[in-house]
């Protein structure tokens, strides 16, 4: 564990370490301090952190504009729902299988579109996600249950214990959140993490370095989608019923906003973004209706005044600072 601990301390600095420990303790004791309603809110907070982190790999690290992320989330949720209700496979066994299914689906559909440029890629991912949603509504293969979706998904069992209370699911999702954050911290600073950044910064230069840009981008989609599949599994387990309308364009936009508002490529940014999306409207119930209005305006304002996001990644922050110093720099070139 030692090198990881070093990384974490490096990342957060000595004084902030205390805060992270405090946060961890808060996560552990939170359900004991509050009502089951707020425990549920905290569950969804965690779920959207997972979704945000998964899209962050694609949008933040690799710079690929994916506006159809809900499709991968849906594949995960429906894989769980179908295999559980039809074959009776326990829900938690389906966690890795849902991840694989979403990853495989991402592999299939992104293969022909990876060469598309930013905004075109965004449009195509919207298109794929809509086709997925329409297919679910039309009950493909008689498996998806049509517009009403599937119900009767059984409760997960862990070490002989049936998980059904908000607190159970809270701990399940936050355990995954912490594991995934630890994995992401490591991945950011690995050979693959850097490759994603190289491709995002300048694809042609990355190729000239011998990096297979297509494969690297594909991996971002596959890994990010696998994680979205995990989130889908948890969601299906928690709700015990799922329907296509939970996986529409809106859902993709919400996840996308989480990544953008917090700061592309930033892990704490995703947490902040998910907090704003999920928890904040619960605190200010009066604004709940205006939630998306405020988020839309925030996205515009963010691009105008703080494009690096609320809690930018260290890299984005450095980039901003050096821009302020405004030293002459050569044009990065466009491709």
């Amino acid at each position, binding site marked *: 564990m030692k090198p990881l601990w070093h990384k974490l301390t490096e990342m957060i600095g000595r004084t902030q370490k205390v805060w992270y420990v405090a946060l961890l303790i808060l996560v552990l004791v939170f359900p004991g301090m509050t009502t089951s309603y707020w425990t549920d809110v905290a569950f969804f907070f965690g779920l959207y952190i997972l979704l945000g982190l998964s899209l962050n790999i694609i949008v933040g690290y690799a710079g690929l504009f994916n506006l159809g992320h809900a499709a991968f989330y849906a594949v995960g949720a429906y894989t769980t729902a179908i295999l559980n209700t039809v074959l009776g496979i326990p829900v938690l066994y389906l966690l890795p299988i849902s991840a694989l299914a979403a990853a495989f689906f991402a592999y299939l559909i992104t293969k022909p579109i990876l060469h598309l440029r930013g905004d075109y890629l965004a449009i195509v991912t919207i298109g794929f996600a809509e086709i997925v949603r329409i297919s679910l509504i039309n009950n493909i293969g008689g498996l998806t249950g049509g517009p009403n979706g599937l119900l009767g998904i059984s409760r997960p069992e862990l070490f002989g214990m049936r998980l059904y209370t908000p607190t159970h699911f809270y701990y399940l999702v936050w355990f995954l959140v912490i594991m995934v954050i630890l994995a992401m911290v490591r*991945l950011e600073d*690995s*050979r693959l993490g850097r490759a994603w950044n190289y491709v995002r910064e300048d694809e042609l230069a990355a190729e000239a*370095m011998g990096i297979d840009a297509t494969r690297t981008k594909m991996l971002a989609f596959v890994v990010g989608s696998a994680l979205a599949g995990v989130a889908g599994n948890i969601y299906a387990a928690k709700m015990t019923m799922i329907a296509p309308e939970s996986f529409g364009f809106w859902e993709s936009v919400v996840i996308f906003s989480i990544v953008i508002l917090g700061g592309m490529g930033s892990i704490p940014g995703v947490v902040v973004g998910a907090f704003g999306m999920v928890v904040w409207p619960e605190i200010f119930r009066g604004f709940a209706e205006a939630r998306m209005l405020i988020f839309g305006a925030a996205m515009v304002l963010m691009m105008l005044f703080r494009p690096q996001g609320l809690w930018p990644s260290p890299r984005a922050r450095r980039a901003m600072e050096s821009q302020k110093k405004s030293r002459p720099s050569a044009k990065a070139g466009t491709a």
Partner: protein
Amino acid sequence: MTLLQVRDLSKSFGGLRAVNDVSFEINKGEILGLIGPNGAGKTTVFNLITGIYRPDTGQVMLASDNLVGLRPNAITKKGIARTFQTLRLFPNMTVWENVMAGRHVRTRAGFWLGVFKFKSEREEEKHIRETSIEYLKLVGLEHLKDELAKSLPYGDQRKLEIARALATEPKLVILDEPAGGLNDQESWELVELMRKVRDMGVTILLIEHDMEVVMNISDRIVVLDNGEKIAEGTPEAIQQDSRVIEAYLGKEEEESSWHF
């Protein structure tokens, strides 16, 4: 011994023949200059060798491997690295990370190793960092390793691109107008650097406008004009070649940089 062999290379765009039946060889360990007036087809030849364009006809052989049809990243893996005429660093990443990009193709760790950080990954990561520093030392930028690439002065960005290319451990490195935009002092440093690189055993193909640099450092020179090879030889021979002089005198804008 021949390292790279370009044989009967042709490429047309629309009806325009950009490169017509060009052949030349680069010997292992030499510095070959590729020159020609503007629009002579230098950049096209460059893009044909590095896999950005696919030739209509002809072959590019690196040792015994045919490179035609390979993607740019595969060609880099085979052992040809390049720099860009207009700088293409990773601007928002550090100087060190830029060089680490070059190590990518010679290392292996993927997703699982990155997440689980097994011993092999940690060792490889250490190796990537250490060797990258060596390349930074070679070009004299190790003290700037934590700066963002885009914050470096122009001359240093040029050097960084060369370090990044060398970090792929190429057999052949192609430098696309590396002296472009450099002052005399920096050009001189560049010539020194190229010598050092050659002495390390890396062959260099130099595409350059600055005649002083080309004449100074090249072992041999190939001259293109209108997409065809019009001369090949030592710098001295090229300077005497009447066809070369004619090609250059025909293009006025080149006169100023042509020293006899």
